């Protein structure tokens, strides 16, 4: 089942890139200056291997199920937290968003509250010093710090 989905996704990706490659405008006449040639060749080979994987999966009759569990949901939540952090960095600024992000992630991964408070502040301080003071990268232009 898993390999079946994988191979179908691969075939779709390969076909999509092939079709999309047609939109690249070519200036020259010969194939060496055709920007679509190389991506097209790779797309075709990719679809080919997707088909090989599909056929092999069908022939092997292996029934493997995909399990869904609470753990998967938590991983999804983790990804959502990461996206929130990205936007927080961009719009709020480094210090506030990093302390908050670290604190919640640490709790989420099973740390004790007191330890999380202490370590989220010290990790933020360390990162701040290394990147913004030592390496002097420009500060993120968030609303707060």
């Amino acid at each position, binding site marked *: 089942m898993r390999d079946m989905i994988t191979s179908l996704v691969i075939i779709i990706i390969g076909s999509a890139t092939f079709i999309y490659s047609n939109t690249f405008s070519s200036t020259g006449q010969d194939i060496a200056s055709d920007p679509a040639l190389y*991506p097209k060749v790779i797309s075709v080979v990719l679809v080919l291997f997707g088909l090989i994987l599909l056929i092999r999966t069908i022939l092997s009759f292996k029934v493997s199920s995909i399990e869904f569990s609470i753990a998967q949901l938590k991983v999804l939540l983790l990804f959502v937290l990461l996206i929130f952090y990205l936007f927080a960095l961009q719009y709020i600024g480094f210090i506030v968003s990093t302390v908050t992000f670290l604190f919640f992630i640490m709790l*989420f991964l099973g740390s004790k509250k007191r330890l999380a408070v202490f370590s989220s502040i010290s*990790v933020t301080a360390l990162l701040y010093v*290394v990147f913004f003071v030592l390496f002097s990268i420009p500060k993120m232009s968030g609303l707060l710090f």
Partner: protein
Amino acid sequence: MDFSLYTEGLSQILSFQVLFFILLGTVLGIVTGALPGLSAMMGVSILIPLTYSMPPAAGILMLIGVYLGANYAGAISATLVNIPGTPSAVMTTLDAYPLAKKGQAGKAIGIATMSSALGGLLSVITLVLIAPLVAQFALKFTSLEMFAVALFGLSIIAYVTQGTLVKGLIAGLIGLLIATIGADPVTATPRFTFGEINLFSGIQFISAMIGLYGVSEVILNSEKYFKQKKDAIVEIKVKVERAIPSFKDFKRLFGNISRSSVIGVIIGAIPGAGGTIASIVSYAVQKKVSKEPEKMGEGSVEGVASAEAANNSCTGGAMIPLLSLGIPGDAVTAILIGAFMIHGLVPGPMLFETNMDLVSAIFLGMVVANIFIMILGFSGAKYFAKLLLIPKPILSAAILSLCFIGTYAIQNNFFDVKVMLAFAVIGYAMHKADIPKAPLVLALILGPLMESNLRRWLSMADGDYWNTLMTAFSNNPISLIIFILTFITLCMPLLTKLFVSIRQSVSKGR
């Protein structure tokens, strides 16, 4: 004889700053290597951001220090808690942990340190002798030959990495497609940019690496925790005593270490085959030649020495194709190429012509890093054992944050962070689909090289492809040989299957 290759880097190496960064890199490498769940790939990719503002020699050598340190330190957690700190320490656990249970953890770590450092040093010597020769040879490569070498590197990594060849090739092809994002190398037509101006210069390689190896590995580790709920708290029951091995041990193991190092260098030089395979092979060889093979697996110092010498000598081996051809020998060296590019350097035969001092500094720096490993391992084993007590949630959260800030710092741009997150999702999905990541990483590096060389050749052939190809083959058969090797690699699974079925039918017929 011209010794400039060995001396020109001296002035760079002998500065306090560079020595300090090599030491820092080695320490950080040992930290990442000793902690299970943090691989050498992850260590190098998340620490690249620290090197942006350094001079090239200092930055690259610091990362090489991370690479060597991480490769070595897998042995520490292998000894203390029976978990390989890096995948390549898997054979080390077989003997090092039984030794630790007998109360000889210090001895095990000492032997591992000695073998790792000696293996590393021997591999640097090989690298110094072989890389310039290969580079000189490769200087004469035409675009067709460069294309062939890149294609060969890609197919062999797909074959060697765990999982099936088909999935390895799929990973490589996806990487090649991702590498086409951005301006076309010949006509500058935007490809797959979807109107996004930030994509015009292509995917930022470092952000891709940090996503694939930093964030997605933290997430996979967290998923493991979510599943078993109670995090197995690491308890170190063994005590680490004196770690410096005796001269008797050194004399007894020297032959073993040399042999294992040769195996390691050779396997390391093959693209895709890294420390794990090298240590398995050399462990097996050691078992064959050992006078007491029955002791191996129950706490034999021979086992520790052969596994550790092999997996560390891979580092020098993997650097051979990196420096001389610009083709990475494994995922870590592929990430190192990214670090070279950040400093505006392109590894490959030309590097020996244009940046001889840097190449020389890299050789010398690797020697220094291996000496640091020896010093740190002998004196600090006790303290590195404490690393295992760092709470996982704190570590994971800190790494995630470092990934974000580090990616942002590449060009002070949030778009790179978005790319990094996208690759974290890709890395996670690939893990779930059982598709190896290493071929994709290699393809990201080799893709532009392959395409530009192919297109250059096509335009030189000017329509008359068949005849040009045949003339090229008859003038210089290197490319033909490499193409044949590639073909054999790709047919390998079929050939082995055929071989097995023939043997079965023969034995049935009897």
